[in-house]
């Protein structure tokens, strides 16, 4: 199991220290934590320390947070409103996200954009598949990770969760960047059925040979080691 650091605003200095002490093997950067210039400098610093760099494009973040995120060049005039994001723009947007990560940040793997859902509806599924297909077409030289950002209602609904995993297995990507919004936004989850559903879904991804990176993980996520995460 590899540990990637995922720091908040003003905490980037800690990354270098923990990488030097070999406590972590890399970082997952995100647009919310700094300006593009700061992030590019930090990426270079991490690479010089021998750490891996990943970048979460945060397409799933609610609109209220968008001011800093929109400074990043891959948005380039696109509306951040995920609800009205045009299906046909998905491939074009995806390409810009990849170019930024690969050409500017020189990441070790590319995290594709992915909207957050707590419903798992057909429109969301079409976006997910479009991002994965566009990513595979545009990026053949770096590992690709599809973002799966889902809420507790999806995880708890067996049919929804099954069909989501069934489809995700067929995306032409090497792995997944998984973001789970816990029930009641609780830090530690006591709902056994929810935890079982997470383990069940991630086990299938691992058995299919897909890499899984769990975003914003806490100590409870260590139990996912049981299914090979």
């Amino acid at each position: 199991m590899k540990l990637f650091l995922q720091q908040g605003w003003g905490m980037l200095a800690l990354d270098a220290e923990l990488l030097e002490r070999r406590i972590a093997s890399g970082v997952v950067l995100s647009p919310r934590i700094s300006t593009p210039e700061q992030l590019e400098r930090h990426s270079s610093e991490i690479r010089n320390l021998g750490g891996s760099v990943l970048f979460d494009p945060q397409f799933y973040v609610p609109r209220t947070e968008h001011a800093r995120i929109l400074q990043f060049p891959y948005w380039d005039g696109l509306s951040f409103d995920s609800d009205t994001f045009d299906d046909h723009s998905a491939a074009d947007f995806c390409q810009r996200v990849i170019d930024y990560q690969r050409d500017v940040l020189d990441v070790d793997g590319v995290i594709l954009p992915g909207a957050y859902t707590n419903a798992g509806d057909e429109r969301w599924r079409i976006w997910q598949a479009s991002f994965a297909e566009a990513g595979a077409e545009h990026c053949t030289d770096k590992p690709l990770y599809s973002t799966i950002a889902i809420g507790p209602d999806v995880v708890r609904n067996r049919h929804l969760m099954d069909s989501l995993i069934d489809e995700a297995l067929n995306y032409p990507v090497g792995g997944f960047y998984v973001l789970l919004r816990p029930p009641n936004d609780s830090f530690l989850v006591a709902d056994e059925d929810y935890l079982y559903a997470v383990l069940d879904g991630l086990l299938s991804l691992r058995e299919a040979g897909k890499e899984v990176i769990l975003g914003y993980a806490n100590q409870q996520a260590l139990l996912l080691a049981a299914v090979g995460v």
Partner: protein
Amino acid sequence: MPFEPDTASVEQALEDVTLYNELARGGQKVVFLGESSKFGKIAVKLIKPDSGAAELRATREIEVAKSLADSHFPRLFESKKVTVCGVEVICIYEEFLEGTSLRSVLQEQVCLPGKETVMIGREISAALEILESSQVVHRDIKPENIYLAERGRVVLLDLGIARQLGVASLTDDNAIFGPLTPGYGAPEQIRNEKRAISPRTDIFALNVVMYECFSGANPFSGHGATPRDALMNTLNLSPESLETFGSSRELARVIARGMEKSPHRRFPSPTAFLRQLNLCPEANE
């Protein structure tokens, strides 16, 4: 209008082949046994596409069949367009197989011993490995399409509704069901969930076939079930463990996993399935 050419008209259109007899006829397709000076004894298939999509489907079937150079599939020698009775049709020269279908065997013997059930599973999963490497899902694995040819050769027939993954689908997105045979089609085919169709879809059908071989009845369409019942059973019914019919616990578990309703709970690949199948006591009898 149905396509019903007689032997003489076909022979006249195909100057390089002598036709012996008709082997099968259905819809817009006729199959003859013939002899070619170049290929020897062959199956001559004539397909009259009734729409642009049907023609594209037939063309894809030919492309897929040509790419599968392996003993688990019939060899496709040649394909061309010919005019029969004033109608342009697609003509395929295919290897003629001597033997019998698994369906005929099951009609005669009802069920097969564990060793033979596992042999069928091994051979067809080897065929599925080849399809997987070609990014093709067969989508119609059933005893009628499994042919037991000479010298123990097992052949998978009929790529008519096969799907090439990564290529635009030719079936209707709004159809209630995807193309399938009730009793063998996987739940994701029944629900027409195209993005969930994968090699696991064929693994499901293969395990249904193996269950039927060992138990003597299809778990979803057996015992007089109507096609509608078979579809509902496939979606909702968990078949009785094969152990009830005398299999080892290992084989029962392998087949139960292969028939899981949700594709992600089945074996991730034909190779993974084969590995587990080979660990069953029946594989070493």
